[in-house]
């Protein structure tokens, strides 16, 4: 699928910016809604740990009131404090994995885009086609069955899952830029590969890739949160929104806040992030040039 897709401009566009972003898309109303929705969980995730005091004494499990605004969790900790602490891991692991995926996919994609040897391209891209057939969560669970990955391991795994798609998009976007006369001129002038790849091709596809990175980041957020919910890459009692949802589920009927608040924050983070990326893509300045 990848190659045929990448060869057609329309396929590339669908891959890169998602559906309906051409002349036919409806404006969802600018950046503001997305920014507002994503702002609360993001600020809470990044700045929250700065505002937590010392951990108070543990109370009774899964109760409301008694000095705890949001009640207590399954081992009697203050839910408010856990909420403040619990966003950082989700956001940071997702960010790290997106950065890692790009660190591998950028050079690989550019090598494929700039090479004139077909076999190099086939060698780098075909295995990725095959890797796409492995469900992403399955790969993570498989590794988790053998080792217990920490947050760093989880970031690595999520990055690994994202590399095939990212490399395809970098290659597809880069191939178009690499076939321009300017690259031919650079090549005849004897410029170095890095200069051509990152100096010219990279610069001309930066916008497309920025858009893709946004999409990739929301995908990573999803995967990191889901893995944490299933207990991969986190401690049993970690301060993590996804873990909170999982561990406090048993007390949903007596103390819903311990589940609903972190779940709402995760929904807001992913939903708002998605709206924001989409709105940013729709801004006239960032639209792909039509040739």
């Amino acid at each position, binding site marked *: 699928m990848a190659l045929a897709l990448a060869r057609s401009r329309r396929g590339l566009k669908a891959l890169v910016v998602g559906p309906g972003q051409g002349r036919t898309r409806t404006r969802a109303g600018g950046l503001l809604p997305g920014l507002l929705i994503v702002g609360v969980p993001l600020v809470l995730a990044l700045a929250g740990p700065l505002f937590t005091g010392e951990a108070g004494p543990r109370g009774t499990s899964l109760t409301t009131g008694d000095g705890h605004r949001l009640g207590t969790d399954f081992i009697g900790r203050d839910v408010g404090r856990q909420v403040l602490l619990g966003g950082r891991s989700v956001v940071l692991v997702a960010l790290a994995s997106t950065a890692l995926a790009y660190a591998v996919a950028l050079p690989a994609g550019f090598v494929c885009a700039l090479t004139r040897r077909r076999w190099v391209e086939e060698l780098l891209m075909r295995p990725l086609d095959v890797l796409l057939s492995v469900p992403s969560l399955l790969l993570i669970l*498989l590794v988790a069955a053998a080792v217990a990955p920490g947050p760093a391991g989880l970031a690595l795994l999520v990055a690994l899952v994202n590399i095939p798609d990212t490399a395809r998009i970098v290659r597809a976007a880069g191939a178009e830029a690499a076939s321009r006369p300017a690259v031919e001129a650079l090549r005849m002038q004897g410029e170095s590969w890095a200069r051509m790849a990152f100096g010219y091709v990279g610069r001309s596809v930066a916008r497309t890739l920025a858009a893709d990175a946004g999409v990739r980041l929301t995908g990573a957020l999803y995967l990191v949160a889901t893995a944490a919910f299933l207990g991969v890459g986190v401690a049993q009692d970690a301060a993590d929104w996804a873990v909170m949802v999982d561990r406090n589920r048993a007390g949903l009927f007596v103390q819903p806040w311990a589940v609903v608040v972190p779940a709402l924050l995760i929904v807001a983070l992913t939903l708002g992030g998605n709206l924001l990326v989409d709105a940013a893509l729709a801004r006239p300045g960032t639209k792909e040039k039509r040739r």
Partner: protein
Amino acid sequence: MPWAARRLLLAGAQTAAVVLLVFALTEALPGDAAVALAGDQPDAERIEAVRAALHLDRPPLERLLDWSAGLFHGDLGVSLASGRPVSTYLADGFGPTLLLAVPTVVLLVPAAVGLGVLAARHEGRAADRIVSAVTLGLYAVPEFALGVLLVTVFALRLGWLPPTALGYGTDLLAHPAALVLPVLVLLARPVCSLARLVRAGMTDALASPYVAQALRCGVPGMRVRYAHALPNAIAPAAQQLARTVDWLVCGVVVVEALFVIPGLGTVLMNAVAERDVPVVQGLAVVFGLATVLLNLGADLVTHRLAPRTGAAA
């Protein structure tokens, strides 16, 4: 080579890759099954004994050949934890997962196409804006967060539906109400992403000259939309199908964990927790094969509908 042959070849390669990858991942990683099984006091002698009993002392290549030869005969090996054949685990989990998967797949395409066409017909108007905003927002939301919120509203506040399938065992068919929320949660992401793509393809198709010509000739609007425009509109959606299948397979695991449904996903999670490597391997192969087959089927159907796109391979 004809397109279908190339696509089948890719599916074959993907199957081989899944088998190889599953084996390599569970083998190459540190902490082999014998260590995990030897219990709390793993002395070297006991580990060696377990290792010999599991044939882990033989070279990896030999074991890979043995294992994949067994796969051909449907022999998936024996669980480390219980000693039961892995196939009995599969048989136990198969029913509930099927009950979850069949309604989801049956509802997925009509729901996505219906929403997409609805939005495209009313492009730019209220119906389109609502559908577009909801589908855009929902499709990145993790199933577990959405599911927990739905449970809070529909089971806790309103009391309409049971919060989990706990206590119903594998006999879920007798309790269809317990399946409503799981199927709804499982549908959310794929429906949203497909509906967005169908809408995008449909707005393009409806604006095309051939649709205008068909309407001018007096072909009924219904027929133009569903018989002429839709097959072309589905083409861009086909490019998303691989990811949709991926989401469904992942979603099954999460939804089963969330709603306590004793299906394949739950079996997989339990095996992961117990580090029961043969069961994990067997289930991973089954999930991987399901992905390959679903992708293959989807690609073949799409190719039939819109041969020009040359989807896949």
